[in-house]
């Protein structure tokens, strides 16, 4: 089944399409997946069918991309997706205790969402914040040079 391409989304799709040379319509797969996820917080298989139809590529191509790239969520997430880097430089600067602190404070494990739907906690690989480790990304925003206190402050200030 295809998801419905709403007029609002279509307008955004058209604007993105205009940025690329005409012969490169296949390149729209990632930008349109991002656009769809920005609108609704996640991307379903039906969305991939819709996007594929808009671009004119096989549905399987968009589905493969949606499943392979880690930034796309296949299901609704919490309002704020908290992504803490667990790679080497952050690990050397305390990311593990940060993650433990977050689990304790939010009352959830990595991969879970708080019951009130406010936070989803994930670990991610290197964010290229090695010089300002440890770091996390909440939604689109980077937060760096973290410690437990700063993390608490950041979470408190989020809507």
């Amino acid at each position, binding site marked *: 089944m295809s998801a419905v391409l709403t007029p609002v989304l279509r307008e955004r799709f058209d604007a993105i399409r205009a940025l690329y040379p005409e012969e490169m319509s296949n390149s729209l797969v*990632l930008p349109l997946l991002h656009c769809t996820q920005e609108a609704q917080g996640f991307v379903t298989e039906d969305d991939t069918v819709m996007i594929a139809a808009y671009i004119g590529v096989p549905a399987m191509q968009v589905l493969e991309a949606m499943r*392979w790239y880690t*930034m796309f969520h296949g299901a609704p997430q919490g309002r704020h997706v908290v992504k803490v880097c667990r790679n*080497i430089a952050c690990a*050397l600067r305390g990311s593990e205790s940060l993650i433990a602190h977050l689990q304790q404070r939010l009352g959830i494990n990595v991969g879970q969402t708080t019951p009130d739907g406010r936070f989803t906690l994930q670990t991610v690989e290197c964010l290229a914040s*090695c*010089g300002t480790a440890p770091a996390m990304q909440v939604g689109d925003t*980077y937060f760096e040079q973290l410690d437990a206190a700063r993390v608490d402050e950041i979470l408190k200030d989020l809507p």
Partner: protein
Amino acid sequence: MKSDRVFQSFPVTADTHTLDAYRARGGYGGLTKALTAMQPLEVEQQVAASGLQGRGGAGFGVGQKWSFVSKKSPVVYLCCNADEGEPGTFKDRWILEHSPHQLLEGMLLASYALRVRHAFVYIRGEFDLPLRRLQGALQEARAAGLVGERILGTDFSCDIVIHRGAGAYVCGEESSLLNSLEGKKGYPRNKPPFPAIKGLYQRPTVVNNVETLSAVPWIIVNGGPAYAAMGVKKNPGTRLFGLSGHVDRPGIYERPTGYPLKKLLFEDAGGVLGGKALKAVIPGGSSTPILTAAEAEHLTLDAEALSKAGSMLGSGAIIVIAEGTCMVRLLQVLTRFYSHESCGQCTPCREGTDWMNRILQRILAGQGTAADLVSLQEIPQAIMGKTICALGDAASMPVLSFIKKFGPEFQHYIEHGRSVHDGRLTV
């Protein structure tokens, strides 16, 4: 521009990324010179004369790469690789945040030399401020007639599109990047053919790293030979070295190649965090073989010296590890990373990276055996040189080098079911 600094030639402030600030420090002078007084071939020749080598990690000669592109091809593409994902690396980010116009100018110069009409910046999907700064710079550049039709009133036209990735380390590999740009999974391509022959949509394509392209304006302004005169002869120029981990003042430090590592770490960057003794250094990003403190003692930061030491200059990302760090746990951070990032296309990497990670996990859980150390020699050796792309090698070298240099720690963990250093990773 200060003659020995290609990048960090100015103090960073709130505005230094803007077009005005860039122009004030001589920005777009190189582009103006090239478009008004040089032929495309001359631009290519200056870059070749500079001896500039790729700054992404592979270190391939830029002039050589550009020369592979046929002068007769009607369509040539340029892709800037801004998918910075090698653990420890955060230098391209520095350029995007503080001097994005330098990248744009470098891309325009490369496009002029290679006859590129459409250029792309493939920027990792996670980037926040670097993306916004680049987008802002591109807007400014367009408005000022520096990007688009008839640049600076000449016959040269070039458009730049910023294309976001979506979370995949392997997309930093150039052929994977191209497949991703084509709207597919980032599966690397078998080579031959190479991108300069058949790249984006099967057209000749040059893929260059952010730092590489951003060095081109300086080269055009000051001449290739002037660049070649900096640093070490066989590996010239300056590099944006990144220091992270157990270091007092982590950050990006531009230094000429051949600069002593010890000086960089202990004099420029304040030494090991908390005044601890140095235990080890990963010199060029997590994929490069680890060096002990002793091996790092007299090391100079150039390709040949690193090669002699049994490692690589890589992305210039120096990860500092202090005494008391558990190397077994640290290795598992990396094996987990590589198995997570393995694209899944080819057999040795797909199966082997997960295999190595699960062995490390079992060792960490206190269930390791002596046979595991044998496996952790055999598996990386079975992977290396047999994969479609270098991720297989990148995943293998840390395993081989960690165990080679810190074998007793691994043996201890296996024999006693726990870490010598209580599993500590922090200082």
